[in-house]
């Protein structure tokens, strides 16, 4: 029986995976992907079927866990934000070489316009790089159906499938019809081709040639996929290729139907055959794609008869930032709608650390100490506390990616920076900071690593943090001297004590860890309500 629910794109993907007979979701939280895993964690079917749904330490451990589940014949889903795909690039590329046994779907949620991210990389490039099929749904309903079919496709072709969502799909709600057919889970069964799973050169060379051949099959599949179609139009002055969510912005501008021939693409490898067919009908092509110009770049110069290709590369569509109905409207040559001018009164309202947050008190104390050290540099990391760069704190000098605070502090200290201070959150520390701390211990570096521990993964809404309650033990286990693992409680009344501890550890010329620990006030409020 079909159900109708208002679902986020993330939730539609999660439900599609559950209905496909999912046995495990493996993920690390990251905007805009977090709600996929959270939806599965709270879903009764996941409980009933004992679907694996604990958070992983990072995207690499997540990807590997899912690959192990696929090896055992069961259906697994991996979820993360686009930059998580960098963290797990090694097992991701490896999974194209091993192939999939049980269906393996990798959901990577891109964030064009960087609403909550440090770059706007387009995950579709990774699909082409690994020679893996990519599914890019254009609606919430399609997201549900594609998730479901991605598992079937993965098993049919023996390859993981990369599912790419973008912010506006992940975090937009629409009515989704679901549940007409809920599949059972797979039984334990091992790969028919065991050599493929041992990527020694002798096996990998064989597999690589097979994968190159298979990639042609994937493209032929894409040409006949029901998610890709070529729609005729009376006006042949232009043809339009609309990928994923770009299709919606195109159709938004033509309420009575698009007058131009349109190729809608949601399944890759890009079906060149359909593009050639379209190019035979028209004089120019406009490529609309969310993210970076992957399709456009590949089409430039491909057609023999001098067909011009417009898109992001010639600024017909803005070169960066997410698509909007307005940007697409301009690219189509349609006049803008009449609009009110922007208000001159409005002031920017950037995000800020919450009032009462422990990170605030930590930065206040740190600043008070560091004003006495002219050469101090503070290496930041990814999380709420990155907002410590903003006024009134202005505490941080760098923020690059998960874990870089510790290791950049090392490199900078070796170059002569003193004091070299790293500031990292508890969840980021267990994600990618621990190995860097071991480097610091082995190199006897002069660094002060501050773990601002709020007992949760705060920025993404308060998910479990992998090392809660064990940070001191972890640091000691990595070889930090116990007397230089110090714990402070970040509260205004404790400023004198906090500053004393920070100063002592900066004055110690070796590896010190300061754990500044107080629960996130958002999760504290939630716990108080329960």
């Amino acid at each position, binding site marked *: 029986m079909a159900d109708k629910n*208002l679902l986020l794109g993330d939730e539609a993907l999660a439900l599609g995976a559950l209905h496909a007979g999912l046995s495990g979701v493996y993920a690390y939280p990251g905007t805009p992907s977090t709600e996929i895993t959270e939806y599965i964690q709270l879903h009764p079917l996941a409980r009933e079927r004992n679907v694996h749904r604990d958070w992983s330490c990072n995207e690499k451990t997540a990807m590997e866990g899912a690959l192990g589940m696929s090896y055992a014949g069961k259906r697994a889903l991996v979820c993360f934000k686009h930059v998580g795909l960098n963290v797990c690039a090694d097992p991701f590329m490896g999974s194209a070489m091993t192939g999939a046994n049980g269906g393996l779907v990798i959901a990577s949620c891109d964030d064009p316009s960087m*609403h909550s991210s440090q770059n706007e990389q387009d995950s579709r490039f990774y699909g082409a790089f690994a020679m893996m099929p990519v599914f890019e749904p254009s609606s919430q309903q399609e997201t549900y159906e594609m998730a479901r079919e991605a598992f079937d496709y993965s098993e049919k072709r023996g390859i993981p499938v990369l599912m790419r969502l973008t912010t506006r799909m992940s975090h937009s709600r629409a009515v989704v019809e679901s549940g007409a057919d809920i599949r059972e889970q797979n039984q334990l069964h091992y790969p028919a081709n065991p050599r493929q799973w041992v990527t020694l050169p002798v096996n990998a060379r064989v597999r690589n040639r097979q994968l190159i051949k298979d990639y042609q099959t994937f493209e032929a599949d894409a040409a006949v996929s029901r998610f890709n179609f070529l729609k005729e139009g009376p006006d042949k002055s232009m043809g339009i290729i609309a990928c994923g969510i770009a299709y919606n912005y195109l159709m*938004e501008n033509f309420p009575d139907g698009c007058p131009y021939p349109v190729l809608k693409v949601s399944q890759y490898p890009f079906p060149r055959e359909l593009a050639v067919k379209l190019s035979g009908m028209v004089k120019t092509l406009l490529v609309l794609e969310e993210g970076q110009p992957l399709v456009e770049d590949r089409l430039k110069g491909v057609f023999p008869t001098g067909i011009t290709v417009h898109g992001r590369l010639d600024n017909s569509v803005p070169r960066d930032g997410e698509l909007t109905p307005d940007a697409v409207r301009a690219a189509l040559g349609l006049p803008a709608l*009449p609009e009110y001018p922007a208000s001159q009164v409005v002031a920017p309202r950037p995000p*800020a650390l919450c009032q009462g947050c422990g990170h605030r008190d930590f930065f206040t104390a740190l600043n008070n100490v560091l004003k006495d050290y002219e050469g101090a540099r503070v290496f930041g990391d990814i999380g709420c506390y990155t907002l410590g760069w903003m006024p009134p704190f202005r505490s941080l000098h760098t923020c690059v990616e998960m874990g870089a605070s510790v290791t950049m502090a090392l490199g900078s200290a070796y170059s002569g920076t003193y004091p070299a201070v790293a500031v990292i959150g508890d969840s980021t520390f267990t994600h990618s900071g621990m190995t860097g701390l071991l480097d610091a211990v082995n190199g006897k570096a002069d660094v002060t690593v501050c773990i601002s521990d709020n007992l949760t993964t705060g920025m993404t809404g308060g998910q479990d943090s992998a090392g809660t309650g064990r940070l001191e033990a972890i640091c000691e286990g990595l070889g930090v001297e116990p007397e230089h693992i110090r714990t402070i409680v970040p509260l205004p009344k404790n400023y004198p004590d906090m500053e004393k501890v920070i100063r002592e550890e900066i004055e110690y010329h070796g590896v010190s860890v300061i754990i500044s620990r107080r629960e996130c006030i958002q999760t504290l409020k939630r716990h108080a309500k329960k």
Partner: protein
Amino acid sequence: MKNDIILAGVGGQGILSIATVIGSAALEQGLYLKQAEVHGMSQRGGDVQSNLRLGTEPIHSDLIPKGGADLIVSLEPMEALRYLPYLSKDGWVITNTTPLVNIPDYPQMDAVMAELNSLPRVVALDVDAIAKDLGSPRGANMVLLGAMASVLHILDAEKLREGIRRIFSRKGDAVVESNIKAFDAGLAFSQNRK
């Protein structure tokens, strides 16, 4: 028929509680709906908005085009102004008048109100005060929902009341009733002002 709504406010004010009630009513009535939300970093005390689109026909874009919004509904007066380029020439602004000042350069309130009042179709009301007077300070969002109900043509007020009952039923009858009271107060205010 369609209604395109921009819900605006500051992270933490709970604009999504309004969207949840409208969404429930729309689903019940078999309308098409798309609702783009903001999650993540921007939720931390920054400006937030949600694009909520309702229609009797399928909706393509998750985002509302500039000049296309039938309503801007804001829990904060300056935030209502932030999205003016999205407002249709025939569109309404329904806004709370209590400012949330968490930035050092918040503009003069006179200037904010003057610009709001220069718009041809605006309902400005102090939803915090109205909710407080009713004895349910946490019902401010429902006062604002009531205030927009008079210009939300695609859903009638009774459907929205049913939505409130569905969404809050788990919290008990008292909570449902105080939210309905808040809704009715907002509705009455906007009907008198229109």
